[in-house]
């Protein structure tokens, strides 16, 4: 066990050095989240007029979720690079903990996601987003957002190991994420959707996560409790994320055990 920690810490150190030295990584935690908040807050927000909903409060949970899920691509691309330049071969030939390679990457990428959350909170605050709940429920909201980010990061690692090509990771990642993003309550209330589509969207884990965050942060929400998923977003999001995690992590570890450079 101590081996996993020693090796994991060494590799987290490696990735933290990358943050300063890889421009894309720095951009992904600064410019990207700022742009997202401003784009949704001002541009989309100016066109949104939902009765009973303060959109500047509504959309922030969606932006948090969007940026967390986008972390998937960063992780996947990084894994492809390590795989194709032979670093994975080297790590796998060392007498080190194998899971430490994946833990080092995913934990340090989670740190990137956390930095992005801080940046978004500051910008959101500047344009009028407020948390109305208590300290602990606010913290629980951020915990849930980061949990979503962590699942997405592991998903990205799996995509990278299976596809082994940075461009493929980018485009397939987009194809997977887009329907989840738009068929959710992340940016739009679900009231206008046809009944069957609304049922699908209500069971979307992203809907559950964003609705639960809005509840925890005391932000405007449109979940009126028609159906189980809409009434229990906290339960649905935790169960969905737990299931995804339990499926993705072993698959990623198994892929890593077989991965070699081409």
């Amino acid at each position: 066990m101590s081996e996993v920690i020693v090796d994991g810490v060494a590799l987290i150190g490696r990735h933290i050095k990358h943050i300063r030295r890889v421009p894309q990584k720095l951009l992904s935690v600064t410019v990207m989240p700022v742009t997202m908040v401003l784009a949704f807050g001002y541009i989309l927000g100016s066109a949104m007029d939902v009765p009973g909903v303060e959109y500047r409060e509504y959309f922030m949970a969606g932006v948090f979720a969007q940026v967390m899920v986008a972390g998937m691509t960063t992780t996947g691309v990084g894994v492809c690079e390590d795989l194709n330049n032979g670093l994975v071969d080297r790590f796998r030939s060392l007498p080190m903990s194998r899971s430490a390679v994946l833990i080092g990457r995913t934990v340090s990428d989670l740190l990137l996601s956390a930095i992005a959350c801080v940046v978004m909170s500051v910008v959101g605050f500047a344009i009028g987003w407020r948390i109305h709940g208590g300290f602990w429920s606010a913290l629980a909201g951020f915990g849930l957002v980061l949990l979503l980010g962590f699942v997405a990061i592991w998903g990205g690692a799996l995509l990278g190991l299976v596809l082994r090509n940075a461009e493929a990771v980018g485009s397939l990642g987009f194809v997977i994420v887009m329907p989840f993003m738009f068929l959710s309550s992340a940016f739009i209330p679900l009231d206008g959707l046809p009944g069957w589509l609304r049922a699908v969207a209500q069971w979307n884990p992203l809907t559950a996560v964003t609705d639960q965050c809005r509840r925890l942060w005391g932000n405007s929400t449109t979940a009126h409790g028609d159906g189980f998923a809409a009434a229990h977003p906290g339960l649905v999001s935790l169960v969905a994320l737990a299931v995804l995690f339990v499926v993705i992590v072993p698959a990623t570890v198994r892929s890593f055990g077989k991965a070699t450079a081409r």
Partner: protein
Amino acid sequence: MEYAIETHDLSKSYERHKALDGLGLAVPPGTVLGLLGPNGSGKTTTVRLLTTLLRPDSGSCRIVGLDVVKQAKEVRRNIGLAGQYAAVDERLTGLENLRLIGTLYHLGRREAHRRTDDLLERFGLTDVADRQAKTYSGGMRRRLDLAASLLADPPVVFLDEPTTGLDLINRIAMWELVREQTARGTTVLLTTQYLEEADQLADRIVVLKNGRTIADGTPDELKVGVGGQRLEVTLADPARAQDAARALREWGVGTATVGEGGRRVTVPVDGGIDAVATAVTALKGEGAHIVDFSLRKPSLDDVFLSLTGHGTPARDSQPDAEAEHAA
């Protein structure tokens, strides 16, 4: 005796393609084995099986007596791997790269730092130790990669095409570093596409083709089969090629062949410098205008030609592809 590397009937397939078919190796400690062969002959597959990256379909392999499948982790403590991709982290400095590998070998902080400094010095990287590896030249990267594989001072080191893509000066520098390491008693398995490299470094050479061993011997034994050096003369005027070939034969240099547009005359010169001197005299007497005059060692192509009796395997599928194209 216990071999440093020992394999029996080792096989590995990828889907329908048989990458390695019944390989047997026995490498005594402190020696260098050269695995020679073209792309796709099974060299890299062999290295990956022996370094625990792949599991064999059948057969067994042991490194310093440890089973590669059942004692994978112990094996990893006893090996170093330097691959053809120069597997260093581009965004870390040379120093950071080596210290990271030292930590992951669990050498302890002080020991990892001491060996890092030592290897940077030995490999001429001290001056660039604090620069990111992405700024390194190809030769510097390969040296850093080799240094990483030697950091734990493992008894067995695998070098997968350590000089592919390097220029001559860097290639010679790598050869020197490998020689220094073998002088310290390290066992080395080296794959290469270059006969000369195997010749320079290896005590024994195994030639692979389509996953099978087609020759096994010391460099000298292999060269006997291939023949010695060749003298190549390129003439300005193709019309004079036959005359030049005749003169070489009459002066007793050897049986010359004319190739490549009729301008190049090739003759084996097993007699060393005297034979070359005779050839110069013969050609001078003929009065032919010589554009290029060079001595070359037998190439891998020559080895394959002599071992298989016909062209290289890479060309086998070409007629089919062309037929399809025509249809």
